């Protein structure tokens, strides 16, 4: 089977490292190069110690990106939109891990990212890289956007309810808990271990960027907040759906979630009645492309509530994993190729 070639632009950050970890063990892909302005000339394992011995690649200077069938761009938000258009070639798939091509509406982008979109002409063609909501569109895509990690956990928790019409007339609050790697590898005071360890606080009381992504993918208008918790990898999104009337019974919810996810390779319904681990827990999916979802109906007097949660690894299903999964779909490769990692337990 002839392998396809892949290269990574700006691969010294956490997302770049995850793309390498997945692609280096992908049966259908050969990684032909990874660039990094800051680490040019250094061995990859200098920035990604877990990759020692897995590759002999060195980081290339930014302007030495080799040609490849698939290009992953890890250039940060607002810079990517200047870079990505130059990467586009016929017959090539470009996957942009930044937020620049996630929102189809350039006005929403400008509102939440504070700067006008300079490549808005590509937005109609860009496909949001979440196969669980856009598999058909990803198939033929030339430009695929990465996904937001918190938005993806929220989308996957809410999707079955949205599709079953159970969000109608409801007000939705999304309370996120997220690990420190989501803030990226860049050094900053708040990220110091001695300050960040065991810190549990509201990091963003309102989080419109993610809310915009959620509304685009599931149609749900949400009030989002994000907390820091004692995790490096992992995000847990807890969605509180305040219903206009009584809550449906849990059988109805089982049907809605099964209908949406029974054939999905990476979304698992985790709702156990016994044992220690009964619901989604980011600690139990770390390093894998799994997204675990669950749901609870709260009856009681007065209008009811549904609580839906989703746990995933912000660097895998919330970034590099969905990117590789989307690449598989776009290239016509088996969707699970390179994404079979089993998570650790105990961990």
């Amino acid at each position: 089977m002839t392998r396809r070639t892949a290269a990574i632009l700006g691969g010294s950050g956490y997302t770049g490292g995850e793309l390498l970890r997945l692609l280096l063990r992908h049966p259908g892909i050969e990684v032909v190069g990874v660039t990094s302005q800051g680490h040019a000339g250094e061995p990859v394992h200098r920035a990604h110690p877990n990759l020692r011995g897995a590759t002999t690649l060195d980081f290339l200077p930014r302007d030495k990106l080799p040609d490849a069938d698939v290009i992953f761009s890890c250039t940060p938000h607002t810079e990517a939109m200047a870079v990505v258009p130059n990467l586009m070639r016929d017959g090539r798939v470009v996957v942009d891990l930044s937020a620049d091509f996630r929102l189809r509406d350039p006005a929403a982008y400008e509102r939440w990212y504070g700067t006008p979109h300079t490549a808005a002409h590509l937005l109609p063609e860009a496909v949001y890289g979440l196969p669980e909501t856009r598999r058909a569109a990803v198939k033929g895509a030339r430009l695929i956007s990465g996904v937001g990690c918190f938005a993806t956990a929220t989308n996957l928790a809410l999707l079955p309810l949205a599709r079953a019409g159970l969000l109608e007339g409801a007000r939705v609050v999304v309370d996120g808990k997220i690990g420190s790697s989501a803030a990226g590898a860049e050094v900053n005071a708040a990220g110091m271990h001695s300050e960040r360890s065991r810190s549990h606080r509201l990091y963003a009381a309102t989080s419109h960027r993610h809310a915009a992504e959620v509304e685009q993918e599931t149609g749900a208008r949400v009030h989002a907040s994000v907390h820091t918790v004692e995790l490096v990898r992992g995000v847990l999104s807890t969605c509180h759906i305040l219903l206009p009337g009584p809550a449906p019974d849990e059988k109805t919810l089982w049907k809605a979630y099964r209908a949406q996810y029974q054939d999905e390779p990476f979304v698992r319904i985790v709702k156990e009645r016994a044992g220690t681990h009964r619901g989604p827990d980011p600690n139990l999916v770390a390093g894998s492309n799994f997204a675990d979802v669950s749901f609870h109906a709260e009856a009681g007097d007065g209008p009811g509530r549904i609580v839906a949660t989703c746990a995933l690894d912000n660097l895998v299903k919330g970034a590099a994993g969905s990117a590789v999964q989307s690449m598989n779909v776009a290239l016509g490769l088996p969707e699970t190729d390179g994404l079979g990692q089993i998570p650790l337990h105990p961990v």
Partner: protein
Amino acid sequence: MSQTILETAPLECPECAARLAITPTLAGEVLDCRGCGAELEVVSLTPLLVQLAPHAEEDWGE
């Protein structure tokens, strides 16, 4: 940027409405509100006008 114009009421912080006990001496001076820690820039002395100094949003990254 909301501004507080001092006519009669004592100087009030534009962010948290706490009363500012200190009396600024220079235009352009920056003082901290004891109530909420907001940095306030003295825009003018007569009338006494303060406004919120721009503050760094938390770098949310992702």
